[in-house]
């Protein structure tokens, strides 16, 4: 997927963030001269979604996970099992 940051204006990105479906976003990206895969479109739209899991469910999911550490800079995620 080619990315041309300099040509994506604030207005264009605002429009992209208003898309509601994967197909809509893929079509819009095409008008910008960009190809988005289905997975990329899903990932983009997911960034805009609210969390669906409630507090109780999150407790089951979130224990022990960190989102920001990188094994290269400190202890945290990276290779493992």
């Amino acid at each position, binding site marked *: 997927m080619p990315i041309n940051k300099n040509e994506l204006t604030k207005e264009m*990105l605002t429009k992209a963030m208003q898309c509601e479906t994967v197909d809509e976003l893929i079509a819009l990206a095409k008008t910008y001269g960009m190809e988005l895969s289905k997975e*990329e479109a899903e990932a*983009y739209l997911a960034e805009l*979604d609210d969390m669906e899991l409630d507090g109780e469910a999150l407790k089951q999911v979130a224990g022990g996970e960190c989102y920001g550490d*990188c094994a*290269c800079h*400190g202890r*945290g995620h990276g290779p*493992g099992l």
Partner: protein
Amino acid sequence: MKLSAYEIFLPLVGTDEKQIEGYALLVNGLYGAVDVVKKEDADKLQAGDFAGLSAALRERLMLRGHITRKDEAGELADLKLLSRVYKTVYGRSGVGLVIMPTYDCNFRCPYCFEQHRLKKGQGWLDNTMSDEVMEAIFNALKDYKARGYGLGHCTFYGGEPFLAKNIAVVKKIADKCRELGLSMGAITNGYDLEAYLDFLEEYKVGNLQVTVDGTAELNDRRRLHKDGLPTYDRILKNVELALQRGTAINLRVNVGKENLHGMQDLVDDLKARGFIAKEEERAKEEAELRKTDPKAKTQRGEFSYYFKATNDDAHPEKNISEQDTIDEMMKMGFTAEEAVARQSQYNVIWDRLQMLFKKEGYPDFSPAYCGAEQGMLVVDPFGKVYSCWDVVGKDDQVAGYIEPGMHRFLWNFSKAKWRTRTVDLMKACQTCPYAFICRGGCASRSHNAYGDYFREFCGEVKEIFAFIVSRVAGKEWEKRCAAAAAGETGMDGCAEELTLSLAGPVSRITEAERAAIMATTSQKEIFDIVKASGIFPAGEEAVKGN
């Protein structure tokens, strides 16, 4: 019936560093199953002689995923299923916040991966985060919290985040973090830390990563002050002062050919300065306190240190391997386990495996190497957002941005590109036995090696994994055999299964549920299906009615 495409065979290595004769280790990289088998059975497996195994062993290995009736496409479908579950449920549940007050730095380390920003000149470097940009960033973070995302911590980063001249800006950011209830840490060179001692205590900054690269002159050549001033003594004095204020310090040592043989001198100097002895005392005191209060902390912060091979891609002739640091530590007299504990690319795997041996949870199945492919947001002083802290300042890698007056980050498609840099989507990784172990490797290393952030980087993961697993499993095996010999436990088949296996929960997902998982983007829908399979840690809700 066939051997899983994700099967890894390894020797068992005892605490005496000798191979444990007569036994071998099976690791299934897809389901995370780790098993000890007799060497003769491992040989039969590798030869495809399944009929030569005992019925009980064959059944056990099939249940755990080492032997399978699935073809390559069938196992790949399991990898994609697990990856989708992980990305949708775990990968989207939180934000890993990293804030840069400035790009400026008082050091000019020759191997710094942010050298590109120096071309922009000191005028640009002098910029710090404005109040207006700060306001917009924290409004966007409040929005994340309001939408249900986990956000618990902020890491200060740079350049050098703790420059003495910028303390006012840093305090303003810390005030905002405190309003949101965020704990704080930082990656700092430690040179100006004396100016931040009251700040560390007031804002309860929990931990700092500080780097030295050897003692005295050796350090000062690599951790180079921009005005050529010596740095080593001042950094370590500041580390002691910060520890006294209750902040934990993790001392990182970047090792290349130049300072590989200086590791001993550094450890000796840390001992001579009292860091090691004081940490041993502190740990004893904490253990005593925790007999009555499990969360008790000592006044003095925890001190630790670790080594990491430098990735100076501009000068690869100066680099060493991660294993070189382990070998050097073992020459210095550390045991393999002690060396692993002091190496950042090894200790995570060692610690994780030891946890898995307790069989209280399933092996990890993240398809993402690190936070860069998940929820990490690295926000620079101008409000630009990056997915990875190695690419800050690179205009072509901006993933999003925020401007004064905005209340949400504006994302460009680069964000999605980083989110989809996962092993289920990278062709080279899909059928690799190390997919869920390596997780695609570091994007930044991939760019340095191949000019492409979005392809795999294997690095030394196979060698590192083999070194660790053989030893940590060997140690566990010796423990179990000793317990059995003392009559404390038996050595039945369960003793040979060192971890749980995801093969079980995956087999409990019906075809209709599998199709639903692969089609839906609903986090809750996927969570509800998978919860019933028993993958998540057991809780009242998980156990009831399932």
